[in-house]
C-alpha cells in the first residue's frame, strides 16, 4: 500500500459558517496503480490531491504516504518525502521562470544532493520528452505543451514512487494534450510509478485502472476501470 486515507475531513473557516470541503474520505492506493480522481468543479479534487501529496494538512483524519504518517509530520519531514519519493505535474506547469529547461529538470535531483550525473539524467529525460534541443531555453520561451513536457521530465527525474498530476492536460489543446498524456503513460510504464491523476477529461480517466468520483466532498464511487467504463 503506497497511499492510505482514513476518515479525512477538510474544512475552511468561513465568515459566517465553516465550509466542509472534504467529508470523511477513505481510500487506499496500491503500488503501481494508476488512479483518476474525477468530479464536478468544486467537489474537492484539488484539495484532496494537495492533502495526499503532503502539501496541506487535513482538519482531521490520517494520511499515510509511502508508509509514512504524513498527516502528523513536520513540514520539513514532508518536504524530504516529497523530494525523495513523490513527483508532481500541475495544470499550469509551474516551472521556475528563472531556470532553463535543463535546470528545471535537474532541480529535484540536486535537491537530493545527487549533483553528479544529474545533468546527464536530465538531458536524457528531456530527450525522452522530445525537447533534446531546448536545454537552455527559459520557460517563457517555450509553448504550453513544451512547458508541460519539461515538467513531465522533471516529475520523473527523481524516480518517484508516486506521481500526482492535477489536470495535466487542462491547459492544453486536444492534440497537445494527447501527446503529453501518452508521454505520461509511457514514462509511467517504464518507471513503474504509481500515478494519481485529477482530471475532468473522461477520456483520460478511462485510460486509468481505477476511478474515484467525488461529489460535494464525498466519494460517491470508487471503481476499477472495467466497470467504470460501462457507466
Amino acid at each position, binding site marked *: 500500500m503506497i497511499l492510505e486515507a482514513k476518515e479525512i475531513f477538510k474544512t475552511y473557516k468561513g465568515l459566517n459558517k465553516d465550509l466542509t470541503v472534504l467529508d470523511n474520505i477513505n481510500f487506499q492506493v496500491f503500488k503501481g496503480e494508476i488512479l483518476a480522481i474525477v468530479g464536478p468543479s468544486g467537489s474537492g479534487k*484539488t484539495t484532496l*490531491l*494537495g492533502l495526499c501529496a503532503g*502539501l*496541506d494538512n487535513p482538519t482531521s483524519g490520517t494520511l499515510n504516504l509511502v508508509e509514512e504518517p504524513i498527516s502528523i509530520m513536520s*513540514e*520539513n519531514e514532508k*518536504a*524530504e*518525502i*516529497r*523530494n*525523495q519519493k*513523490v513527483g*508532481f505535474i*500541475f495544470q*499550469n506547469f*509551474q*516551472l*521556475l*521562470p*528563472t*531556470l532553463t529547461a535543463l*535546470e528545471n529538470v535537474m*532541480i*529535484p535531483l*540536486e*535537491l*537530493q*544532493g545527487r*549533483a553528479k550525473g544529474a545533468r546527464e539524467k536530465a538531458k536524457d529525460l528531456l530527450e525522452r520528452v522530445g525537447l533534446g534541443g531546448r536545454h537552455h531555453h*527559459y*520557460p*517563457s520561451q517555450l509553448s504550453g505543451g513544451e512547458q508541460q513536457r519539461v515538467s513531465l521530465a*522533471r516529475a520523473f527525474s527523481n524516480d518517484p514512487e508516486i506521481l500526482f498530476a*492535477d489536470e495535466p492536460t487542462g491547459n492544453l489543446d486536444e492534440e497537445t494534450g494527447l501527446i503529453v498524456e501518452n508521454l505520461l503513460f509511457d514514462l509511467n510504464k517504464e518507471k513503474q510509478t504509481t500515478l494519481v491523476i485529477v482530471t475532468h477529461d473522461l477520456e483520460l480517466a478511462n485510460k486509468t485502472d481505477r476511478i474515484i468520483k467525488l461529489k460535494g466532498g464525498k466519494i460517491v464511487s470508487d471503481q476499477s476501470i472495467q466497470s467504470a467504463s460501462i457507466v
Partner: protein
Amino acid sequence: MKWTLIVKTAIRDSRKDRSKLLLFMSSIILGVAALVAINSFNDNLVRDIETQSKSLLGADMTVGGNKPIPDLLIASLDSLTSEHSSEVELFSMSYLPSKQESQFVRLKGLTGSFPYYGKLITEPVSAATSYETGRYALVDDGMMIQYGLDVGDSIKLGAITFPIHGRLMNAFGSMDAGTSFAPSVYISGEQMLATELIQPGSLVNYKNYYKIDSDIDLDEWKKERRTQFRNESMRITTIEDQRENLQEAFSNLNNFLNIVALISLLLACIGVASSVLIYVKTKVQSIAILRCLGMKGEEAFMVYFLQIFVLGALSVILGVAIGSIIQVILPIVLKGFLPYEVKMTISSSAIIKGLLMGMLSTTLFALGPLLGVRNISPLKTLRISDDPVKADPLRWLIYVLIVLSIAGFLYSLSGSFIDSGIFTLAILAAFLILFGVAKLVTWCVRKFFPRNASFVFRQGLSNLYRPNNQTQTLIVSIGLGTGILTLLFILQGLILGNVEDMGAGNQPNMIVFGIETDQKDEMEKITKSFDMPVTQHVPVVTMELSGWQGRSKKAWMQDTSRTARRWAMNREARVSYREEMSPDDELIEGSYTGVYNEGDSIMISLDQRYADGLNVEIGDELIWNVQGTIIKTYVGSIRKINFRKMESRFFILFPTGVLEAAPQFMILVTKSPNKQVTADFRNTVVKSMPNASVIDLGSILATLNDIITKVSYVIKFMAGFSILIGLIVLISSLFLSKYQRIRESVLLRTLGAVENKIYKINAVEYAALGILSALTGIVLAVVGSYLLAKFVFELDYNLSWWPILGIFVFIVALTVLIGLWNSRDVVKRSPLEILRNV
C-alpha cells in the same frame, strides 16, 4: 543544508531578475554613499569650521598671567608643543608727535610667529611680518583714522619713538567686548624692553600662544594641571573656552548633522525593506514550486538570503566607494558655488561607519520580509492565491534587533541613553501611527464604500483594500518619506534662522565706554545724528565681592573645602541695574526684583554660570565692596544670559534705587553701517567727550560672520542632500509598486478595459494613497519638528504653511505621476509577455 545547491539556486535564480534587484541595490548604494559622504563631509567641514574658530584665538591655547611664566610650567608646556609665541602686554599712554595728541593704548610686544590660525591683517600687507624685524609699530586702524595718521608717521611709546609701519586691520582675542578698552599697538618683543615701560610695579600681562600638533585632549590636559597653574596664578585659555559665543551654533550644527545621518540611514533602510518585500512577493510562486519539489523552508530562505546578502554586501562596498568619490569630487564640482574652500580628506571613520551600518541595516531590514520565505506553502502550486505571505514569529526578534540597532546608532551619535531611548521611541511611534493610518484607511474605505460612484472610482478605491493591496507598504513608505522631507525642511529653516540671527548683519558692532552719567543725553543725540540705533545704553558700576553668608572673602578663599571657583570670586564685577530684565535673558529660578524700596533687602540677579561658579543659591547673602562702600545683598533670581547677542551682558544685575549714587559710567551699544561712519562717529564722540572710548567690534564680528556663513552652508547642503535621497527612495519604492499590480492590470486589460480606464483606475488609487500618506507624514513632521525644536535645539517654533502645502501638492502629484507611469508600462507591454513571466 545543501550548501552547493543553495548557492547554485541563488545564482541561477537571480539571473533573470537582475533588474528588480537593481532597485534593491540602488537604495543601499545610495543610502550608504550618502551616509559616507555626509559623515566625511561633516568631518571635514566641522574640522574646517573648528580651525576657523581657532583663528579667533590665533592659537590652540594661551597661558598667561601678570608675571613671566615660571620655568617649572614652561617645562611642562614644552613637552606638549613644539611651537609657541610670547606676548608682553601693557596699557600705556602714547604720544603722537605730528598731532601733538596723547592716546591711551594697549601695547603688545610679540615674539614668534603668532598667529597660528588666521592672519594678522595689515596695510600694507607685508607689514604684518616685517614689523618684527626692527623698530616698527603697527597701529590700530580705527585709531589711525581717528587721528588722521598715515603709515610713516610716528608714535612715541615710553622712551622710544617708532615709525608707524602699518595699519592693524584685525584683532585677536576674547570676544568679550569689555576686554578691549583701548586701541592696540603692536611692536616686537625685543623693542618692548627698549621702551622702558616695564618697570617694577607696572601692570604687565605676559602671555604665551601655543600651537598643539598632537591629538591630545587639551581640556583634559588643562584639568589635570589646574591647581599647578592656579598656584602660579597663571591662566590657561583653550579653544573650547574661546568658543562660548559659538557654542550654540556648534551644538545645533552637531545635532542637525546627527539627525541627517540618522535620516539618511533610515531612508536607505526603508528602501531596502520595501524592495525586498516586493522582491519576495514576485518570488512566491517559485518558492512554492521549490518547496513542492522538496526544498526545506530554511533552505529556500537561505537561497534568497544569500542573494540579498551578497548583493547587499556588494552594494554596501559600492556605496562606500561612491560616497568616498563624492567627497573627493564634490569640492571640485562645487568649487564655484562654495562660499569658501574646503580641504577634503577621505575620512576613514566615515568609511568604517558606512560599512558597518550599511551591512547591519541591510541585513536586518532585508531579514524582516525574507523570513516569510520559510512559511510559503507548497500548496500555492495547486492554487494560485495572493494570500499575503504568512508572517513569521521570528520576525519579532528581527524587529527587536532593528529597534536595538537604531537605539545603538543613536547612542553612538548622542552618547546619552535617555536621548537615544526617547528618539527610538519617537521613530517607533511614527511607524506605528503610519501603520495605524494604513489599517484605518482600508477599514474606512471598505466600511464607507461609495457604491454609487463611477466604475473607475470604485475600482480605484477598492484597490486599496483588495487582497494583494499595497496600501500598507506605500502609506508607510510615502508617509515616512514625506514626513522626513518636511521635517528636514522645517528644521533647516528654524536652525538657519537662528544661526543667521547671530551673523554680523544683525549684530551691533560698536561699543562706547566711559560715558559720564550727565553725558547720557548728548551721547544719544550724537548716535542718532549718525542715524545709528541705540541698542543699549546702560550704567555700569564696578565692584568687588567681599563676603558670602557672613564670611569674608578672605576666609572663604582659604577654606579648603570651598566649592566656589576662584575666577568667580576674584572677578572684578561690572554691574548694571535696571527695572526690568532684558527680554533676551531667561529667568531660571526665583523672581526678578526691579525696584528697591527703602527698608527692603536688596535682591540681586545672577547669571546662571556665575552663580554656579560661586556655588550660591537663591537667598544666599553676598556682600559687595562698591569702591569703598559695603553693600549687603541677597540672591533673588538666577538668569540665563543669551550669549548670541553681541550686547554687553551683565552677570550681576541690581534693582534700581541702590547704585544710582555710586561712581559709575555708561555703556552705549550701537551699530555702524561701514568703516567710514565708524571713523567719523569715533572722531565726534572723542572730541565732545574725551573720557569716552569707542571700541569697534567689526573685525571680530567679521570672523564670526565667516563661521556663521559656513555653518549655514553646511546645514543647507546636508538638508538638500538627504532630501534628495529621500526623494529617490520614495520614487523607487513607488516604481517598485508596479510589480504588485501588474497581473491585475494585465488581466483587466485582457478583459477589455480601455487604456484610458486603466490609467484612471490607477490614478484614483495612487491619488488616494498619496493624499493620505502625505497628510499623515506632514502631521508627523510638524509634531516631530516641534518636539525637536523645543527639546533638542531649544529654539522658538514657527511654521510657514505655504511651503508645506507645496510639499504636499508635490508629493501627491509625484505619487500619481509615477502611478500613471507604472500603468503605462503595463499598457504598453504585450499582455502575453507579462502573463508568461509572472
